[in-house]
């Protein structure tokens, strides 16, 4: 009764190419390339100028970090809306440290920002794990609470570039072989997170939890611990993003990073991370972040009026979700058809 039908195995190169082209991320990548090419044809300085190439790589770096953290959380069927506020607090902390101790080596300030972010992520994770309240509600609360603390702390004051050491500010714009430090850092985090999610047991467990939380519990996976860790990582990355924000812009007010959380969610969704968890990659989320910010800069060049820009972003999000839905329906039809035909 055993009819072992081993699937036809094409050559590894071909199948590798095929899996790249059919990957969900590839479509987003194509869209990004299209936007860049179109903008460059209109105005060559979009890429072929010192500022152009720098902005292309530098601008998305901070959002890429947030999008990576957000993707990790969304994969577990949760969401972290507090990342913008965490970024703000971390940026302000870093500025304040330099005001209080001007001679401090800047790596310590970076560490402080990351640790603060992790701590705030820990608060999110603990509330969600202990109170068993949906992450949407908890992080909506901490979105306001963290921002409130920031306003209370900063008042109307702001940290200016003059308050921070030059070597720290240089981080925000310096380049290595033409590539900004910030972009390299974001890429390093991306590679590490991508590798982790694909190759380590705990990374795969995040997908399992998001795919079916009840099954994950029955299976005996450490659901609470993993979700908790996902929020700590998301917080730490938002903390790191806050440090980079201070270095890049040189000015930090109590409103730094407000609204970034929605961009981070949008980047993940556009990049193919399913909003109900279980599928998607940080690579997609990162490309989504780059696409989101690049479109913002490209639309004026392409002659799209300013007030249409947000509508375009909205269209992109809805388009991404519809595409996901269509792909999912097609896949389940195909699987069903296989089952009918194959049995």
């Amino acid at each position: 009764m055993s009819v072992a039908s081993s699937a036809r195995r094409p050559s590894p190169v071909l199948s590798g190419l095929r899996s790249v082209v059919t990957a969900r991320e590839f479509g987003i990548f194509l869209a990004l390339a299209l936007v860049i090419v179109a903008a460059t044809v209109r105005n060559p300085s979009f890429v072929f100028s010192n500022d152009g190439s720098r902005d292309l790589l530098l601008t998305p770096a901070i959002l890429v970090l947030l999008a990576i953290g957000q993707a990790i959380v969304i994969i577990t069927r949760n969401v972290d809306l507090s990342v913008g506020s965490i970024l703000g607090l971390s940026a302000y902390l870093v500025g304040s440290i330099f005001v209080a101790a001007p001679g401090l080596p800047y790596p310590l300030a970076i560490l402080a920002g990351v640790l603060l972010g992790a701590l705030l992520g820990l608060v999110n994770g603990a509330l969600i794990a202990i109170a068993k309240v949906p992450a949407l509600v908890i992080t909506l609360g901490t979105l306001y609470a963290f921002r409130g603390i920031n306003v209370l702390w900063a008042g109307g004051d702001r940290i200016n570039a003059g308050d921070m050491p030059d070597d720290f500010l240089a981080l925000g714009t310096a380049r290595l072989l033409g590539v900004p430090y910030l972009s390299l850092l974001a890429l390093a985090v991306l590679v590490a997170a991508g590798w982790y999610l694909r190759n380590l047991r705990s990374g795969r467990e995040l997908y399992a939890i998001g795919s079916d939380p009840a099954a994950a519990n029955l299976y005996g996976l450490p659901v609470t611990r993993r979700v908790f860790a996902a929020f700590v990582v998301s917080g730490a990355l938002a903390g790191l993003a806050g440090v980079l924000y201070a270095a890049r812009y040189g000015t930090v007010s109590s409103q730094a990073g407000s609204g970034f959380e929605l961009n981070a969610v949008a980047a993940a969704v556009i990049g193919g991370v399913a909003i109900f968890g279980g599928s998607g990659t940080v690579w997609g989320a990162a490309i989504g972040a780059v696409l989101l910010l690049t479109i913002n800069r490209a639309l004026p060049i392409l002659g799209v009026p300013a007030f249409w820009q947000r509508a375009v972003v909205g269209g992109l999000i809805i388009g991404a979700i519809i595409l996901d839905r269509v792909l999912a329906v097609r896949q389940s039809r195909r699987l069903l058809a296989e089952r009918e035909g194959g049995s």
Partner: protein
Amino acid sequence: MANDPPTDGTPVLELERVSKAFGPVVALKSASLRVRPGSIHALVGENGAGKSTLVKIVAGLYRRDSGDLRLLGAEVDFGSTAESKAAGVAVIYQEPTLFPDLSVTENIFMGRQPTGPLRRIDRRAMRVEAEGLFRRLGVAIDPDRPAEGLSIADQQIIEIAKAISLDARLLIMDEPTAALSGVEVDRLFAVARSLRDEGRGLVFISHRFDEVFELCDEITVMRDGEYISTDRTADVTVDLIVRRMVGRDVTELFPKEKALIGEPVLRVRELTRTGVFHDISFNVRAGEIVGLAGLVGAGRSEVARAIFGVDPYDSGSVTIRGRSVPRNSPVAAMAAGMALVPEDRRKQGLVLEESVSRNITLAIRRTLSRLGLISAAAENQAARTWASRLEVKAAALDTEVGTLSGGNQQKVVLAKWLATEPTLLIVDEPTRGIDVGTKAEVHRLLSELAGLGIAILMISSELPEVLGMADRVLVMREGRLTADMPREKATPEAVMTAATQGEEAA
């Protein structure tokens, strides 16, 4: 086929006088079970006999209150499914629990994938191992495909592959054949036998006696949360096992009063919904309580929902007092005088966050409203009338329904429908999850309503309830009506036989 006598030695699993209560509800009183290595052990009992609770204790989902639990001779107390799994227990639930987005291979190895340097998952080794497992099980499933869209049978095979790769010593299968076709059942049994021959212990929970007797070496019967008996399959008959499953006192608890039975109210003729139920015909007369018995999944609730118009049907007819009721319209069904108290009252019968009075008046909003507005006074008055008639015990009429006990919630649902002054009342599992005292109250209420001339169709999985309350008993099995007997002829044995072996009884 002559089975070798079960190898003696340390039992794989031993339960002795295990008990478990949830608040006042005792799910297990005293359960015992001994599974030998290299044997397939059937666990049988009515719905509610405590089989699922027993399985969940062994799986580590519940902690027992008292009694002994030993695995391979060692005393154990599992606090989580991870612990029971590590100890060598694998449970295959009725509905397999896979991760739909992940590949079949990942589903088998999740949490314990083979790893290489840097603890990196070795995908190739994992895939080779999965292929090996499927080859050994003699099935052709693509290890790379996502688990989404697999048939239930294939999903179960993957669960079994999981268990084998874990080297589970004990494999529990909770009604694994309920959703399988004949060929799939044969394949599953072949796999089960080969696992037995490797010396593992298997527990097989099923309502299908033909399968139990074909596959199992020993049978343990449970009833009302208690251990009844264990025998070698060769030493017992289906009749004996059925008698042990149902044998208990039926008369208490059921204050059935003799009601005057009148003209037919509901007439169902040749009702069919392809694949769900077929050719269902029966009457319910004024003042009559008709019990609809059968196993879970026999299609009873589906018939009720079709009669009430919640679900569609393909052919047949439903008439109330001679007038035909249009299909697929609950509004028309209500206008014709029907009321349905659904199976899951918390999800389908109540708005839990709303008050008692709002819930009671939910089905009569139209008659209460003037110019489209409902006054609080009218609402409260109607609610008060029905709440007091049914003796709903709530602090006040504006108490949130979600805070009431199960029995009082059920009374609110009944009140809601009685407020519509129905001529036919359909109740689906009216006393599920209700404590014994309130149970009797609900029974008294149903009896009273029948006395008022209301026709009642009562679906129940509790045999004593059906036998105690019904004037007439209908039995369904796998989507067909297999028996229609008057109260006098409805013995537990007759009903169970019709529910499990329809052909002989029809």
